[in-house]
């Protein structure tokens, strides 16, 4: 069938376009990071010589002198702690919203939605002032608190959408069959809820990992500066050279693990991102 093969050709072109669109900047960063410093301005998309000098410069000097190791630890630590707290609080709230009838339920959902639309820049000034007087400026906690606030709406919506799908009657059925309430929760409900919780956790982690505005506004040193903020303050060998190679290498280090992770859990992420998009 002529029509069929033409369709295949069209789809192939469409898919190829999407692939190039998505991958181009990533491949470009990898290419830049592998160029030796002398060849960084050769303007070619594919490196002609390869070197790991840019990666070595990131980790040179160990934890105290490296411009990258401390921000990396800060980023991972802050994002992980944010994720754990946010998911815990959101799970409690989502359980109540999905399972219980109570006045104020719609108000909480509407409030969460409003906060998802809230412009973070409007809170930066007050937080800067408050954190300085409370001693939270330039600390992990100083970043974790705003990340918690702005990730909770996302976590609550995703979890509510998942929790509504859980057949909660199974819990009672298990108890009728002789399980204790705690057994029924651990052996029946927890395994059913785990995929939703995990999905929400990935989305919250990516949110905290990505933030730049709070990270440059509420930190001033390596004590709490995360990778995105540290990248903006990277300096070159002299004040005239831009540290393109080191930035590219650092970008690859923080990007590749996330990409692998995202690709591995793509189904979950897609369902999480679109949770409630069709039916709230």
């Amino acid at each position: 069938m002529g029509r069929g093969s033409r369709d295949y050709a069209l789809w192939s072109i469409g898919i190829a376009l999407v692939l190039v669109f998505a991958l181009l900047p990533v491949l470009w960063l990898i290419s830049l990071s592998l160029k030796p410093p002398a060849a960084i301005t050769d303007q070619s998309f594919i490196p002609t010589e390869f070197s790991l000098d840019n990666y070595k410069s990131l980790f040179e000097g160990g934890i105290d002198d490296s411009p990258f190791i401390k921000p990396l630890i800060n980023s991972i630590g802050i994002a992980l702690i944010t994720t754990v707290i946010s998911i815990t609080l959101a799970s409690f709230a989502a359980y109540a919203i999905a399972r219980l009838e109570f006045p104020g339920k719609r108000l909480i959902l509407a409030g969460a939605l409003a906060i998802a639309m809230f412009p973070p820049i409007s809170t930066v000034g007050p937080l800067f002032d408050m954190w300085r007087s409370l001693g939270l400026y330039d600390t992990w906690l100083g970043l974790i608190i705003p990340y918690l606030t702005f990730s909770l709406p996302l976590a609550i919506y995703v979890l509510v959408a998942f929790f509504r799908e859980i057949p909660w009657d199974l819990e009672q059925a298990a108890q009728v069959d002789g399980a204790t309430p705690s057994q029924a929760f651990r052996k029946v409900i927890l395994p059913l809820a785990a995929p939703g919780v995990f999905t929400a956790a990935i989305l919250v982690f990516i949110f905290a990992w990505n933030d730049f505005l709070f990270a440059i506004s509420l930190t001033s040193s390596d004590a709490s500066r995360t990778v995105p903020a540290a990248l903006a303050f990277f300096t070159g060998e002299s004040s005239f050279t831009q540290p393109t190679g080191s930035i590219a290498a650092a970008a690859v280090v923080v990007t590749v693990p996330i990409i692998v992770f995202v690709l591995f859990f793509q189904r979950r992420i897609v369902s999480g991102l679109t949770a409630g998009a069709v039916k709230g």
Partner: protein
Amino acid sequence: MEASAQKPAVSSQRTRSEHRLAWMLCAPAVLAMLAVTAYPIGYAIVLSVQQIDLRFPDEGGFVGLDNYLAVLGSELWWTDFFNTVFLMVTTVAIELVLGMAIALVMHRAIFGRGVVRTSVLIPYGIITVVAAFAWQFAFAPDTGFVNNLPLIADDMDWFGGRFSSFAVIIMAEVWKTTPFMALLLLAGLVTIDKGLYEAAKVDGASAWQRFTRITLPLMKPAILVALLFRTLDAFRVFDTIFIMTRGAQDTESVSILGFNQLISRLNLGLGSAVSVLIFICVFLIAFLFVKGFGTKLDEGRPGG
């Protein structure tokens, strides 16, 4: 008789304890959400009616609406406001078209659906700052490969002019956020009954007619929700501009203006006035979508 008299009391006691449990479960999350939004925005309003410059801590005091008048009377605010709206409208429009195309590819794919979905998620997983650097290095006259491409002048200085800078900024923003748009649109697309297309085909409707008469009207709610979230997100644009130009060549957005006043110049009074004005703009955009276009937020979700 006794039983029926007791029943309502028992059940109302039960509902009351259920309400209490529900509120106890929700309280921590609600408090955490209010702590960094309601209180700070209130505090921002208080700061915005005072003269507070941390570089001159001795001067100060209540100045009423002077800060607002200073901001609204400055050319810089209106330049930045124009930039922000210009970037918002262009990026969201391009994303809507591109996102719809990608959603259709994913929905109707004969093969390779997984490949498309996988590649579309890559921009979502990348830090905005990292993506901004990638595009900046690509267009930079010294390191970039773009000027080496055919049809582009070798010495084109992309970041030397206002609208050429905007072109690169828009490209980076579109690349980063189109996947989110595409996924939201795809979620709306899959709910459309396939039978409608078959029936239209039988009646002789062309592919374009099927798209404009069936797909678009039925997807209107999903499109509006996606547009609302992306529009509000685009209005807050900060990371990409900060990395690429820091506001040089008149490319500042209102968020950059707020940051410069608050954090770089430590002028909390003026900066807070800018913050409150941004908050009002966001509120008005949301209001326009909900009341003006009839966006149903019950069907919505917070942005990713």
